[in-house]
């Protein structure tokens, strides 16, 4: 079994299980939308959003929805003891990590596909002015968030208080992702989109992704074994 074969099998399994009920997808998407609505009441004055609110709200909604999705994905594994079964399988442990990461990434990009038009609509923000840059920022940022989140969610599966501990652990570590994502998106939302600044933030995000995915691949096995 090659690494990629393992990854593909686990991803296929996760997608199949998810498509049968679509539970995590629908609930996470709805949660993200509710988040945006709550923020609207917080940040809209006299019928207009305060400046820079749209970028912040997009990334906060992604962070909150992501935390929820991570928790739910691994809760499902825990309930059916399938994570232990996966870990007992004779395959590379990092392959399991990559497969889980891919699953979470797909889920979050589906949620973002709903969030971006919604925020553009509700906050009158020209989010689609530079679509390619925005997509790149969202992908790199979500990848960074999911990379760290998957390791933490997986390692917390056997811990007590796992639901509240995941955000406590995850948010300080993903602060650079949030800062870079929000500043990069805000740069694109200005009257004159500042593509150079967005590109600088994107490079920070990519660097973060590379370092932390490497670190995650390295530490996944010791963290998951007794």
């Amino acid at each position, binding site marked *: 079994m090659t690494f990629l074969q393992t990854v593909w099998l686990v991803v296929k399994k996760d997608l199949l299980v998810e498509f049968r009920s679509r539970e995590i997808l629908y609930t996470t998407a709805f949660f993200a939308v509710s988040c945006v609505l709550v923020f609207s009441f917080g940040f809209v004055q006299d019928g207009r959003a305060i400046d820079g609110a749209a970028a912040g709200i997009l990334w906060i909604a992604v962070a909150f929805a992501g935390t929820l999705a991570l928790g739910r994905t691994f809760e499902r594994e825990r309930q059916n003891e399938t994570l232990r079964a996966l870990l007992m399988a004779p395959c590379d442990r990092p392959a399991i990590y990559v497969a889980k990461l891919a699953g979470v990434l797909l889920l979050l990009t589906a949620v973002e596909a709903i969030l971006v038009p919604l925020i553009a609509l509700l906050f009158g923000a020209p989010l689609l002015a530079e679509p390619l840059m925005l997509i790149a920022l969202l992908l790199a940022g979500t990848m960074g968030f999911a990379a760290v989140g998957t390791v933490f969610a997986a*390692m917390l599966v056997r*811990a007590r208080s796992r639901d509240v501990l995941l955000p406590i*652990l995850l948010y*300080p570590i993903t602060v*650079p992702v949030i800062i870079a994502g929000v500043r990069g998106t805000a740069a694109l939302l200005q009257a004159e989109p500042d593509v150079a600044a967005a590109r600088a933030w994107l490079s920070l995000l990519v660097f*973060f992704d590379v*370092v*932390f995915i490497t670190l995650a691949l390295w*530490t996944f096995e*010791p963290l998951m074994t007794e």
Partner: protein
Amino acid sequence: MRAFPVLTLLAAAMFAYAPIMIANAPFESTMGLVQKIFYFHVPSWFAMFTGAFICGYASAVHLFKGSRNADHYALAGAEIAVVFGLLGLITGPLWARKAWGVWWEWDVKLTLALIVWLTFLAYLLLRRFGGPGSEKLAAGLGLFGAANIPFVYYSVNWWRTIHPKTTVVPTLGPGMRGAFWFCVAAFLLLTGLIMAARIRLERQRARVDDLYLSLED
């Protein structure tokens, strides 16, 4: 550690003498008396980052080599980071209120310090509430947290900065320099002593656990 009592006396003496050195140091031109909190504020951060890096390194060793001793160092390091970080976070706003007029600013050093402090606070929460096996999980967090420090620094730095630049320390006047490095030495000595005491406590605790387990067999 045989030298422990002697070093403790030395640390106590240094802290007793420190206020004298600080009082004799010259006033800073713009801030006057208020600036003198710097002699405890900056060494607190030195101590915090020392604790943070020890925790990060020891976490890596514990994770990859399974060394229990490294785990004791990691826990002690995290506790140092949280305690001295809290000191820094209290003295900082006290100084900022007088020097800048505000309690808090979203500037590089402050934000970085806050994030690192929160990371190691999370480490302690995980160890306390994570249930059995949380030492290893906390080691993962410690490693990721220490690796995150440069990223937080650069991301916040690109975002904004008003804090005095790092070039302050090398440009201190001779009267201030002496007091400053004396306080740094005092704080680092205290850090080392607290860590030694804490590690010894953890080792004893681990030994008691082992004895209980061997008794049950």
